């Protein structure tokens, strides 16, 4: 294996995991950007999405490409319910209350999943998972190769939704200034529900994609939410395109660190970069310093 092949393989591995980081972080940063909520239960939406995909594919025999949108739609509903029950009534209170509630929700969902699905790891088996693909010395399964493309497609869909639709416009308006938006006749509650639906659906999509490649467990959300939070900070809090870029970047950096240094340094590096970014570029890698609004 030549060193170029080695580098390429590592880079491709990084893009695959990075694509998933990007999807999860996109939802996390969207919810923060529009509603100012740091949703620590986001990793659990990712986990539940994976399990929903598992049930659809393995129990009900749905094809993977049907299961993916179905799981996303199902979790979008779940996100709306979570927003309505947990976050809506806390919107005008101290932000720490919604953070604590998000933690509570995360624990509740994780425990529920443990009760329903059991603690043993499981995997979504698909035909693509067994199909090997090799190009330019890089080995993958078709299933893995699909991840960056499907992730890119979902990001594009998200982009169109936010930029080209009436809902996207109201989303951006609320993100800019909720009070003014509501004065202009935008239903802030509806926007909040839509934000959660979109964010959760993206997390669920990422969960299904990962669940088809890696083993899933009810505890899988905890590490992902930390990583995604890293990505959100790197991309600039609330900056959706920053999150996508930072997600892919983090995936590749981790892969190269583990490949050329050692696996131990992988997680150290990610969090070290966060500290550096917070010190040197507090608005994120892609962020612009925003002038403090005068009152």
């Amino acid at each position, binding site marked *: *294996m030549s*060193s170029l*092949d080695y580098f390429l393989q590592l880079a491709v591995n990084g893009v695959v995991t990075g694509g998933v980081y990007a999807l999860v972080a996109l939802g996390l940063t969207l919810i923060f950007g529009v509603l100012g909520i740091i949703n620590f239960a986001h990793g659990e939406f990712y986990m539940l999405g994976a399990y929903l995909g598992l049930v659809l594919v393995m129990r009900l025999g749905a094809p993977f490409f049907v299961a993916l949108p179905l799981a996303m739609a199902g979790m979008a509903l779940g996100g709306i319910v979570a927003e309505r029950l947990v976050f809506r009534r806390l919107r005008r209170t101290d932000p720490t209350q919604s953070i604590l509630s998000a933690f509570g929700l995360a624990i509740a969902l994780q425990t529920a999943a443990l009760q329903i699905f059991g603690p*043993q790891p499981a995997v979504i088996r698909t035909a693509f998972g067994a199909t090997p693909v090799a190009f330019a010395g890089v080995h993958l399964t078709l299933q893995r190769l699909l991840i960056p493309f499907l992730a890119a497609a979902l990001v594009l869909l998200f982009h169109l939704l936010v930029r080209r639709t009436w809902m996207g416009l109201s989303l951006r308006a609320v993100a800019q200034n909720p009070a003014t938006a509501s004065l202009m006749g935008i239903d802030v509650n509806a926007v909040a529900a839509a934000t959660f639906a979109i964010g959760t659906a993206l997390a669920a999509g990422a969960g299904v994609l*990962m669940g088809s490649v890696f083993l899933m467990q009810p505890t899988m959300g905890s590490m992902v939410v930390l990583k995604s939070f890293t990505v959100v900070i790197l991309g600039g809090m609330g900056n959706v395109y920053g999150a996508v870029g930072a997600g892919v970047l983090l995936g590749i950096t981790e892969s190269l660190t*583990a*490949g050329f240094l050692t*696996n*131990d340094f992988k997680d150290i590096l990610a969090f070290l970069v966060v500290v550096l970014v917070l010190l040197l570029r507090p608005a994120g890698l892609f962020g612009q310093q925003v002038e403090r609004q005068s009152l």
Partner: protein
Amino acid sequence: MLRGTNHTGLPAISVPCGFTATGLPAGLQLISRACDEATVLSAAHAYEVNTPWRQKIAPVEAGGPARADTESTRDDGDTARDHRSRSLPRIQEGQAMKHRSGWWIALTRRQDVAIANAAKQVNDRQLEPRRLPMRSVFASLAMVLALATAAGAAEPVKIGVILPFTGGSSIASSEIWNGITLALEEANGAGGVLGRKIELVKEDDESVPTKGVTAAQKLITRDKVVALLGTYNSAVALPASDVARKAKIPMVTGGSTAVSVTKANTPGDPWFFRHFPGSDAQGTQSAQDVVVRLKKKRLAVLYENTAYGKDLEKTFREVTTKAGAMIVSSETYNHGDTDFYTPLTKLKSLAPDGVYIAGLIAEGAAILRQASELGLKTQFIGSGGLMSDKLTELAGPAAEGFAISTMYEPSTNNAVGAEFGKRFAKRFGVAANTHSALGYDALRVLVDALQRARSTEGLAIRNALMATKDFQAVQGPPGTKVVFDEIGGAHFKIGLSVVKDGKRVLLPYE
């Protein structure tokens, strides 16, 4: 004096300085210039260090329950009383004087009888935790209940089981639990132990060391178990066994292999027992098998970043290099990791003949799957922790050719083991494996010791465990008998299985 400092805002501190003529504790208040807390604190500290007062307890007769009073006489009342009569300077209340350093030293009568009583109660609690009023109420309730049940049937013998029922090691844990369950049913079916039934009290440690410690403490203090069985992860067994050692409650492993846990025992005085070979023997055997039987010379190691993985890696490295092989790479991963593409890509570039995995099932299955996806063709050899049918199920065809060190297979030529395999398969509908076999042996070895100890007292059980000599294990080659060494470890030959057509096949013992 308090009011004065409150108004002036000057730093002040109050320290005990003896007892008044009536036996009440008196305080000494030190006041300094404004913003000079450092001096007042160091002066108070110097005073406390050089005087005995902070350790004395007010010899109060008034108030408080009668029982507590007799105790105080026994514990510390004598000394306090002596002090009062012998050495107490007769301090007058409200007396003040100017010290030569310029400090105002004022004596105040600070405490009334109620406060003195409270202080004494606090002291009593520290000395005699069981004498807490609430606790004693519960204790007497428990006594009444115990008497009531004793009238009916003999109390069951309680054994605590700590295993990671949830979390990353849950598969192994459920297999071990099945083995334990079968041993329990058979023992109780044969009349229990010491004429009493055996009852198991389960606690989940979730593979988390702190939870293991809490579980051990809870089982020992609240459930009053006579012995402990557990746990699976060595990193959890290590601190949990420490609890058992301190409480002098014997503990038999529920699968932990790292020798660091038995090495934590005092030689000749072990409280933690492992009834099968430890990580050093397992690592040694696997390493020799790889080099000698499988003839692999260029080796790599992937090991879990825990006590278990590290111990195995170290032994494997030492033995293989001594046997003439070369370790080209040694990488660690975390328990719970799912993506091994990068370390495997690295291995692919190094092209080793054999890769040793020192870890547990979920990660092992992921490594095998992803290695085959990446097109990495090499001989994988696994540590005992990867021993499960679940691994072959999760890894699928990728597990073909995978070699693993094993202490039990249903196809074993150990007659006791083969019989156990049949009963196990009949009871649970799945084949027994190393985990279920070690769980089965763990409870049986404890029951055997209880039988011989003729007592449920910790030391008696421990001594009986140490004297174990005729215990026929279901694990290991034919005729394996468990004998514990001075640090609670046991030794027998470990086998090697290779996965063929989705099933593990035990290679004959050499």
